[in-house]
């Protein structure tokens, strides 16, 4: 009987492999070669531009002795903390059924077949690990190419170590997710375990020790600066990640089908939205994948809940007051990280002042959701006894106020992170206009019609890319102007004030255009 069942399983595995091979063949046959080459061409052009900009940002002057010493003694633990955060994210993803996103049909027919699920899922999981490791490898090698010019050590050492480190970080994340998913850990247990690892790595930073497994992997990234002890530690870290990946692969069969079905449906929509460059839907589906649902009971009830005054403004805040704690934390964290990054960029790399704007744009996309939902329902909008621009501009108010709060968090964080009183004053002059500008950019992105440029995809790409680029400029340009004014002996506050007024006026013009966009769209529909 057992051998009979084994034979059936072998036949099932053979059928599975044959079908997967056939589908892959068909997929390859159906690829449009010219389209693929065009995408590679675009990727190469933008990649070269990105590398060029990065090259400009990182001066090739050797790092100071102080910086090298810091990297040697604390860099390992700091990078270890980054690994620990990645593992924590992985554990949380696993508790929600990740990291695999299997086709719905694969769940229905393959995972319901009389076949061990660990075998059925292994190829998919291995492919995911392979792609993640390869992407990390390339990124790490590129980073190593910049780093060896500033730090002691040979180019080969830096490129190899950073490539391996960057390949292993996503592997650690995916492996942690697979372990949590396969062992069916609950969200609380997985979150707690992740937090413990982060705390352990944090303790390594504070006590300048290397006890956490994540710190051991961090040693790999700074290996060219370490002595012989570093090799042993980095090897141990590497072995631990590979071991974790093996445990994850072996335990794949424990996956919850309920979560797999939910992820299958969402992942299919996510791929479609990504293909359509529909940023807002990508954010929305990403949120659903993370099981982020509005709270059943709001954090607090608005006193004017039954009032009929300012309904659009109240509707926005009612939405925010039902945010789950994870989303609140994420947006606050974006504010803090942006502030710290801005302070660091002000001190060391002024061109990097343009990067946190893109990060704040991600928070603004979350905050613009109430207005974006109005955009989703044109019929409801057109049935209102008022013009759509009233609804749109009114709908911008609550998100703009909330984005301003995030900009305030960034300002305070920048001041605490070493920006001092200059950061505080410049930030105070800019946070309101920047908040308004970010809300406008997010509104333009979230209310864009993803099907408007189906026949002219190049214009579609530009329309999708414009809001985050504008957001980066809105945040970066005033700060860059203030920084340069200070460097030239002028008043950074004066420059910030002038730039702030310009940004505020631009935001007002943007809000007007946004209302016009809706008026025109509804007129076309009508």
């Amino acid at each position, binding site marked *: 009987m057992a051998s009979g069942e084994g034979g059936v399983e072998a036949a099932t595995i053979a059928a*599975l492999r044959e*079908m997967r091979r056939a589908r892959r063949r*068909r997929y390859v046959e159906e690829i449009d070669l010219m389209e693929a080459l065009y995408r590679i061409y675009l990727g190469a052009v933008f990649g070269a531009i990105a590398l060029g900009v990065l090259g400009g940002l990182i001066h090739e002057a050797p790092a100071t002795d102080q910086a090298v010493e810091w990297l040697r003694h604390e860099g390992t633990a700091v990078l270890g903390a980054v690994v620990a955060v990645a593992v924590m994210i992985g554990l949380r993803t696993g508790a929600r059924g990740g990291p695999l996103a299997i086709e719905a049909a694969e769940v229905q027919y393959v995972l319901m*077949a009389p076949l061990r699920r660990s075998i059925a899922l292994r190829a998919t999981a291995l492919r995911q690990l392979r792609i993640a490791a390869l992407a990390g490898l390339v990124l790490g090698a590129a980073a190593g190419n910049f780093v060896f010019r500033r730090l002691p050590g040979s180019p080969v050492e830096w490129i190899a170590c950073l490539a391996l480190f960057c390949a292993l970080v996503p592997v650690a994340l995916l492996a942690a997710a697979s372990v949590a998913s396969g062992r069916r850990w609950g969200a609380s247990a997985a979150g707690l375990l992740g937090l413990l690892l982060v705390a352990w790595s944090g303790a390594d930073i504070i006590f300048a020790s290397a006890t956490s497994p994540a710190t051991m992997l961090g040693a790999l990234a700074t290996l060219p600066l370490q002595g012989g002890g570093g090799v042993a530690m980095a090897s141990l870290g590497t072995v631990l990640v590979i071991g974790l990946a093996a445990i994850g692969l072996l335990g794949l069969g424990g996956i919850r089908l309920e979560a797999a079905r939910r992820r299958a449906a969402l992942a299919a929509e996510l791929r479609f939205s990504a293909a359509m460059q529909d940023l807002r839907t990508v954010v929305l589906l990403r949120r659903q994948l993370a099981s982020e649902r509005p709270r059943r009971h709001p954090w607090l009830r608005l006193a004017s809940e039954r009032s009929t005054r300012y309904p659009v403004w109240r509707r926005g805040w009612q939405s925010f007051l039902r945010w789950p704690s994870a989303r609140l934390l994420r947006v606050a964290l974006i504010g803090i990280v942006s502030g710290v990054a801005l302070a660091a960029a002000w001190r060391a790399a002024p061109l990097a002042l343009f990067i946190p704007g893109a990060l704040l744009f991600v928070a603004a996309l979350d905050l613009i959701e109430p207005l974006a939902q109005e955009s989703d329902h044109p019929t409801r909008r057109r049935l209102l006894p008022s013009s759509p621009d009233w609804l749109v501009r009114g709908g911008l108010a609550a998100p703009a106020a909330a984005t301003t709060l995030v900009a305030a968090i960034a300002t305070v964080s920048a001041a605490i992170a070493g920006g001092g009183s200059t950061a505080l004053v410049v930030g105070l002059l800019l946070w309101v206009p920047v908040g308004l500008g970010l809300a406008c950019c997010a509104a333009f992105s979230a209310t864009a019609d993803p099907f408007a440029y189906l026949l002219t995809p190049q214009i579609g790409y530009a329309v999708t890319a414009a809001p985050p680029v504008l957001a980066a400029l809105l945040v970066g340009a005033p700060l860059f102007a203030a920084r340069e004014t200070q460097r030239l002996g002028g008043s950074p506050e004066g420059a910030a004030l002038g730039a702030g007024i310009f940004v505020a006026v631009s935001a007002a013009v943007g809000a007007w255009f946004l209302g016009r966009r809706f008026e025109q769209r509804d007129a076309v529909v009508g």
Partner: protein
Amino acid sequence: MSAAPVLRARDLSRRYDSFPALSSLDLEVGGGELVALVGPNGAGKTTFLTIAAGLLEPSSGAVEIAGFAAGSIEARRALSYLPDTPVFYEDLSVAEHLGYVAALHGVGEPGPRIDALLNGLGLTGWDEALPGELSHGMRQKASIALALVRPFSILLADEPFDGLDPPSRAALLELLARARRDAGATVILSTHRPDVLAAASRCVGIRDGQLAYDGVADEAAISEFFSD
């Protein structure tokens, strides 16, 4: 009912957040039965079927299929599940789907079985069609064929008659009757259709997640169940 039940649910409960979809449900179904699962919308029928299929986990309690825990390899070998919404690979034709699912379940020569199903369900001529080319009713028929193409001792079907025209409904009832007659298979299906209820050997009513009726599929009794 035969001695060993093909499906046994014991003290089955399932909550969605604070909403109880199923509460302490006990049910045994024997070999060869055709059980019609009825109940108002949101009563817990789909939740019960997906738990029994092993796709959803109960909050408490357990389901056994042919003596094995729902979701286990042995249970999957015995059970076929027809979901309320058809699920397909968008790049495989109807015939490829059928061949694939048959192969996954170890059917050696699936050709005659596939032809019989295509013919019986009125899908002849559509075997090379991709799912995207099928109408709602055709998709439902293809989904039914996928549930029937493999051997099973119990079939769980969630609203299998939705979207089918009267001749297709009759054809499906005939296929189910043949599966019961020839292979002694058990069929549990959720439905609201009187013609299907008439064909059922037993009717199980669920309301508010609890077993509210278990008896013959008598029209008057069912009407009373819904009017309560």
